[in-house]
C-alpha cells in the first residue's frame, strides 16, 4: 500500500453561518484514509457526519484547514475541476438512491459515462455493470419508480461504479432498505472493497458498521475515536 494517503484532512474546520449564530460542524479534524480501506463513519445526529460526507464528496470546501483527495488540494481547485473529480474519482451511493427519475435504469448507469466521454456508451460497460448487480436487459429498461428499493440501490451502485472511481462514498446505503436487502447491499460493497475500492460508509447502525475494518467516531464535530 502506498504511503501517501488517498484522503487527508488536515485541521479541517467547517463553520455554517446561521441566523442563530455560527455553527461549527467540523472542529479541527485531522484524518488520513489510505487506499483500499473500508471505513465506517459513525456518530449521533448532529455530530458532523453529513458535513464530513459533503467534504469527502467534494460537494463543499472547508472553512479552514486543507482537504487533499488523490493528492490534490480541494480548496485550490476550480469549480469545473471539482466537478470532474466528482465524476471520475468518486462514486456516490445515497440513502435515497437519488436516481434520475426521467431516465431508465440503464440510462441512469450510462449517464456518468456520457458525462465523461461526451457520447453514448458503445462499449457495453453500462450493461455489463448492470448485469453484475443482477439486472437483465428487460429490467434495465424500467424507470426508477417501477423498481423496488433494493433494485434502485443496486442501480445506484452500478451508476457509482461505472466510471471506475477509486472511492465509493456511501451515505446510509441501507437506511431505506429492509434488513435482508440491506445485508445483500453490504455484501456487494464488501466484494467491491476486495476488488480494491476504498469504501467509506456513513451510518448510525452498528451492525452495518461491523462490515468496515475501521470506524471513525464523530461527536460534536470532533473525531473521538478512529
Amino acid at each position, binding site marked *: 500500500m502506498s504511503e501517501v494517503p488517498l484522503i487527508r484532512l488536515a485541521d479541517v474546520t467547517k463553520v455554517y453561518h446561521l441566523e442563530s449564530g455560527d455553527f461549527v460542524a467540523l472542529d479541527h479534524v485531522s484524518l488520513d484514509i489510505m487506499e483500499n480501506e473500508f471505513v465506517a463513519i459513525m456518530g449521533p445526529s448532529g455530530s458532523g457526519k453529513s458535513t464530513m460526507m459533503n467534504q469527502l464528496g467534494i460537494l463543499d470546501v472547508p472553512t479552514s484547514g486543507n482537504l487533499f483527495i488523490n493528492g490534490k488540494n480541494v480548496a485550490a481547485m476550480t469549480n469545473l475541476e471539482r466537478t470532474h473529480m466528482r465524476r471520475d474519482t468518486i462514486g456516490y451511493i445515497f440513502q435515497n438512491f437519488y436516481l434520475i427519475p426521467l431516465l431508465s435504469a440503464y440510462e441512469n448507469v450510462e449517464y456518468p459515462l456520457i458525462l*465523461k466521454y461526451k457520447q453514448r456508451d458503445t462499449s457495453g460497460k453500462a450493461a455489463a455493470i448492470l448485469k453484475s448487480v443482477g439486472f437483465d436487459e428487460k429490467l434495465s429498461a424500467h424507470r426508477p419508480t417501477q423498481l423496488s428499493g433494493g433494485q434502485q440501490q443496486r442501480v445506484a451502485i452500478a451508476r457509482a461504479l461505472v466510471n471506475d472511481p477509486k472511492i465509493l462514498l456511501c451515505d446510509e446505503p441501507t437506511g431505506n432498505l429492509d434488513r435482508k436487502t440491506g445485508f445483500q447491499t453490504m455484501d456487494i460493497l464488501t466484494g467491491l472493497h476486495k476488488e480494491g475500492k476504498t469504501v467509506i460508509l456513513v451510518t448510525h447502525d452498528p451492525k452495518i458498521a461491523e462490515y468496515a475494518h475501521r470506524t471513525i467516531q464523530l461527536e460534536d464535530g470532533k473525531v473521538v475515536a478512529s
Partner: protein
Amino acid sequence: MKDIFFDLSVRSVKLNFMRSLLASIGIVIGVVAISSMGMLGTNMQLIVKNQLTAGINTIVITSDVVRSEPGSFGTPTTGITKSQLNDIRDAAGINDVIPIDRTNTQFSIGSSDGRGSIMGLDLTDMKSIMNVSEGSTPRGESDAIVGATIASRFNLKIGTRIKIGEPNISVTRPVVRVVGILPTIGMSSSNGINTDNAIIVSDTWYSAQFGGDNVYDQVNVNLKDVSTLSAVETAIGNKVNRNKEVVRISDASSRVTSVSSTLSSLTTFILAIGSISLLVAATSIFNVMMMSVNERVQEIGILLSIGTEKGEVRRMFLYEAFILGIIGAIIGGIMSIVIGYSVVSAMIGNTAYFFLPESIIYVPAGMLIGVVVCVASGVYPAWKASNMDPIEALRAE
C-alpha cells in the same frame, strides 16, 4: 450524437405535456400576431404602391421660360415650342407624346356662370387617352368633353352648350357642345392630367380662341413601360435642355415614395403591437421554465453532485425552452398562413400579393422570433438551475 440532455428535456416536456402545451400556445399567438400583422402591412403597401405606380407612367414637361413668339403679337408667353416638342418626340421614342394647351377661363351654361380650366388636345390623342363614361370623344371642331366635377356641378348632359369666355355684351362668345362626360379621376390620374374640373376641346378650336398655335403649356409623355421612366427623362433632358434648363421634367414618383414610407411606418407600428403578444408569451414561457426548475431541484442536485457540469445543466433547460419554442413556432407558422390569408383577404380584399416573398417572409421571420424569444426566456431559469448548491438541492423534497 444523440444528446442525453436533449433527451432529458424532451422527457421533461412530455412529462408535463399539458403545461408545456399551454405555454407554447402563448408562442403560437405571438408568432401568429407578428406574422399576420406583418403580412397585412406588407400586402397593404404592395397594393397601394401598385395603384400609385399606375399614375407614374406619365412624364410631365412644362416650361417657365418667357419668350416672345411671332404669332402672339409680341405678348410674352411661356410654354413648349414646336421645335422643343419635336425634340421630345425624338427622345421619347415609342412612347406617346401628348401636347396639351390649357388655361383658366370663365364660362356660362344657360344663366349660371362658372370657372374652370379649358384644355386643348389633338383629337386623335384625345381618343387614345380619354375614356368617357358617357357619350363619345369629340369628332367636330366645337365638340367638348367635360370632367366629372364640372358635369355634376352644372348638371351637364350630352348636348348641353357651354359659352366660353367672360360675359361681354358687345361680343358673342364662342360655344362648345358637350359630347362626352369623363369619370371621376381624383388623385390617381393614369395619364397625368386631372380632368375633373376641366372642359376639353380640340387643339384647333383652342388655338382659334386663345392663340398659341405653336406653343404648348404642357407636354405629357405616357410610358409604355414604367421601368424606363428615368431613362426616358434623361433622354428628353439631354435633347431639350442641351445648353441650359429650358423645360422642367417631372413625374409622380416622389408621391409614391412618400406614400410608401408612410405605409411602411404604419407596418412597423402594427408589428410593434403584434410584438406585445410575444412579450406576454415570453412571460408565460419564463414562468413555465421557472416551474420546471423549481420542481426538479432535487434532480438538479443529483445531476450536479455526480459530476454534471454547470454548462450541461444550463443546456438541458435551454433545450427545454427551445423545444417549447419549436412546438409553438411550427403550430404558429401553420396558423399564420391560414389566419394571415384570412385577415388580408378580409381587410384588404386582395390576396394577389400574399405569397410574394416580401409578404410570406413574415411567417419564417415570426417563427424565428418566437423561438429566439422562447430560448431567451429560458436563460435565467437555466442559469438559476446550474448555479444551485448541490447539497441544498439534494435536500429538497
